[in-house]
């Protein structure tokens, strides 16, 4: 077990490195950079003073340096004028748009993202588990078809439209303030009970919207796996021996059926993170989605790069944890060194 863990940990490092490289390449692809975009905009607004400040930043942040050097400096393996200062040293870079270190800009949003994504995953589990269970044990019944259909509906509806419609109706029917993760007056205040309940009341829309797409897949997988297990020999034996149905179900097949649940965090996490990005943009949530989109479009490269890295890191960590759990559950995986499909 330890060897497996260590091996996986070590493998994460090159993974992250390659991801960071690809991310940086993609961000740099559009021509020009943040400052060239800004110059034109500032001129058209007649903001003369800012032009001079922009000249500064260009030289200061080495935006005139070659690509590889910029990349290496960002990661932290190449010195800038002021020593090593990059991701490896915990410096996430400077955001041009906000004129602040990236970490200051991003701070709270990462926490909110994390909360949102975790809630969605919990929601997905909580909903798909009983439905999958029911569907498998009552195969081909009306309940099976009906519930699966609803799950598919959730999968098929484009998130963003659903979000907008739900948001409007929540406002008209319940007086919920439009968009955001909480009522505006709590935006800058520290956590308190009213703030928490405000967050809860706003959270359900994005969670439902994002969660419904994931549940269909989960239900399908759980149902399929449970059905497979139910055909197996040991179930027939147990039944023949007179074991009570429910106890039988819980003790044996369910454990096996949990397998894909855990394994699927690896599949689920990337889709939840990206799903939540879009919905956050529509609903203007205080998560990383809207900020990322802005950063990508304005080429605020360190901000965008750091967000992408954060999301990739979340995903990689999530996959790692899921593989670990799976390995703990299923010795076959540990020993064969990789997930058995």
């Amino acid at each position, binding site marked *: 077990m330890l060897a497996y863990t260590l091996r996986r940990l070590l493998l994460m490092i090159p993974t992250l490195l390659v991801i960071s490289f690809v991310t940086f390449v993609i961000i740099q692809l559009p*021509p*020009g950079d943040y400052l*060239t*975009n800004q110059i*034109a*905009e500032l*001129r*058209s*607004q*007649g*903001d*003369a*003073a800012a*032009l*001079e*400040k922009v*000249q*500064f*930043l260009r030289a*200061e942040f080495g935006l005139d340096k070659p690509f590889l050097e910029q990349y290496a400096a960002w990661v932290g393996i190449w010195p800038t*004028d*002021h020593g090593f*200062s990059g991701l490896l040293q915990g*410096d996430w870079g*400077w955001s041009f*748009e*906000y*004129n*602040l*270190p990236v970490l*200051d*800009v991003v*701070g709270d949003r990462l926490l909110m993202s994390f909360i949102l994504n975790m809630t969605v995953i919990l929601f997905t589990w909580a909903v798909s588990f009983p439905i999958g269970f029911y569907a498998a044990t009552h195969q081909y019944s009306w309940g099976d078809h009906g519930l699966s259909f609803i799950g598919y509906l959730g999968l098929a509806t484009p998130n963003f439209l659903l979000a907008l419609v739900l*948001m*409007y109706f929540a*406002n008209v029917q319940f007086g919920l*303030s*439009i*968009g*955001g993760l909480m009522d*505006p007056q709590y*935006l*800058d205040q520290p956590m308190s009970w009213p703030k928490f309940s405000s967050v809860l009341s706003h959270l359900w829309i994005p969670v439902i919207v994002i969660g419904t797409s994931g549940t269909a897949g989960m239900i399908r997988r759980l149902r399929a796996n449970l059905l497979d297990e139910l055909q197996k020999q040991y179930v027939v034996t147990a039944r023949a021996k007179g074991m009570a149905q429910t106890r039988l179900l819980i003790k044996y097949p369910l454990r096996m059926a949990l397998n894909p649940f855990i394994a699927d965090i690896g599949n689920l996490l990337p889709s939840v993170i990206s799903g939540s990005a879009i919905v956050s*943009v529509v*609903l*203007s949530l*205080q998560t990383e989605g*809207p900020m990322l989109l*802005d950063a990508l479009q304005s080429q605020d490269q360190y901000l965008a790069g750091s967000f992408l890295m954060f999301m990739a890191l979340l995903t990689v960590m999530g996959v790692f944890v899921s593989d670990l759990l799976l390995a703990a559950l299923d010795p076959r995986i540990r020993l064969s060194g990789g997930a058995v499909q």
Partner: protein
Amino acid sequence: MTTHTAGARSVPGSARLWLAAAVLALTASTGQAAPGVYLETPMLRDDVAAKKLPPVKNRLPDNPLVVPMDGKTLEPGQHGGTLNMLIGRARDVRMMVVYGYARLVGYDRNLVLMPDILQNIDAKDDRVFTMKLRPGHKWSDGQPFTSEDFRYFWEDVANNKELSPAGPPAALLVDGQPPKVEYLDKSTVRYTWTGPNPDFLPQMAAASPLLIYRPAHYLKRFHKKYSPKAVDAEKSEPGRRSWASIHNREDNMYQFDNPKLPTLQPWINTSSPPTDRFVSVRNPFFHRVDQAGRQLPYIDRVVMPVVDSKLIPAKTGAGESDLQARELNFNNYTFLKQAEKSNNYRTYLWRTAKGSHLALYPNLNAADPVWRQLFRDVRFRRALSMSIDRPQINQVLYFGLASESNNTVVPESPLFRKEYQTLWAKYDRKAANKLLDEIGLKRGSDGIRRLSDGRPLEIIVETAGESTEQTDVLELIRETWREAGIKLFSKPSQRDLLRNRVFSGEAMMSVFYGLDNGIPSADTAPDELAPKDQAQLEWPKFGQFYETAGKVGEAPDFPEAIELMKLWHDWHGASHDERAKIWHRMLSIHANQQFTIGVINNVMQPVVVTNALKNVPEKGLYNWDPGSLLGIYRPDTFWFTDARRN
């Protein structure tokens, strides 16, 4: 919108200002209400009692600006309340500077320049500007506002090689020469140039103003010359490199995101970024009062939540904004009107004043020689203009409420003449076809005309891809142009990419907003009409030529462009009457030549005002410069009725 007083047009510019200032000074001193007696602001009473703040009499300058309120356009109000306004990006907190509109000189709601922060200003020949500050005027932290703040700016910021490597701002240079700046006493500053600088005052009254002063007492600690600690800070600050960039970061008067920086605006920002919610509280040392002796602003607090701009119409319709114009479009009006009653607000419609809400810019510097020659043929441009069915566009998109027009000044401007608006702008298919036939563009078998080298006449119009309105208008134009045998392809792009393509000559034609300032007066520099700016999409290379003093770009090579440049040069030294003549000549050249093809202007702008907010005019002009959006209507005079004054 009626403009300034009748006598104003015939009086020379400098004298006019002097007159206005004198009138103001007079009214201030005779006082329609005794300004010697001031009422304490309820919000600050506790602080005054605790000796944290001086009483109101000592917070105001010796001679505060008394805002006249006639009870009709402006009602005297009461202190109190919190104003909510939504912004679409954190950067927009600078709107507090735009709306607050405290300027050395500013426009009033009739677009007349008046001294505001300054007690008075004497502008001799537009060359020598003697500015008198209000003695006793203080910054928002209580420190005195004196000529030292002007000196600090001029000597230690504008002329400091590390802080301003490019030298003082271009607006302060005349023929490349800097002014002579004198500080006659603690409250008098004089700027002297060798030639006239007519832009000086309008630039200081702009939405994004030219600032010739700084809070010296605050910034000195970041300046190498005054504070040895500034140099040490280089090493300890993460990501910063030099004292100059730290100073630049602190020196952010317009950006308004530094709560520690003192300001002269009516409200002070108290939230440091990053934040999703900016709270600004009243400036206890603000220099304006009303006639009853209340120190302005009336409203205690302004809260600006940052939300996604696409959600702002929805949120406004849900009553989450007390005063909203930004990020609202005409096509939101129906929705906003519908939700009015249940959310306790009213929706006004103000007029915008761009020369044209959108205009087509044929690229006269196009790289392709055939296209370039065709675009330079005035008959072609006129035909394009006459093939646009403006009334239909007006009807379909704006309910007929906008004005069909060329890209020219709007009726609210004193320079307006009907023919500028209508010349070559009438929808006339026969005349357009005649012109096109005259040029020799024969129709092919598919009805599309052919260029001289046989290629079909397909114009690719590139847009910045930012507004569906532009796409819609192009769609409507496409149909009528097709009837004339011209094919239109619209290609969405991005603002910066669009500019680059136009500059390089690759883009044939682009779509963008028309004249920025549709309400100029004779004394406004006719910058937008002469080929002197690379950002002018119809002749970027001419503009580039001028800007780089001939190093890059192309010199204007046809008579009208050359004449426009000459007229622009002449305008600078001309008298007021001559200036008006020059403007009219330039406007008429543009109307005749159709260098830019305008479509529609005076588009209406919805302004949502919550029912409890007073003194917001029902009809107004919504323009960036001049106008400062809400600025000229002085939001510091807006006030809440009882219920909202907490």
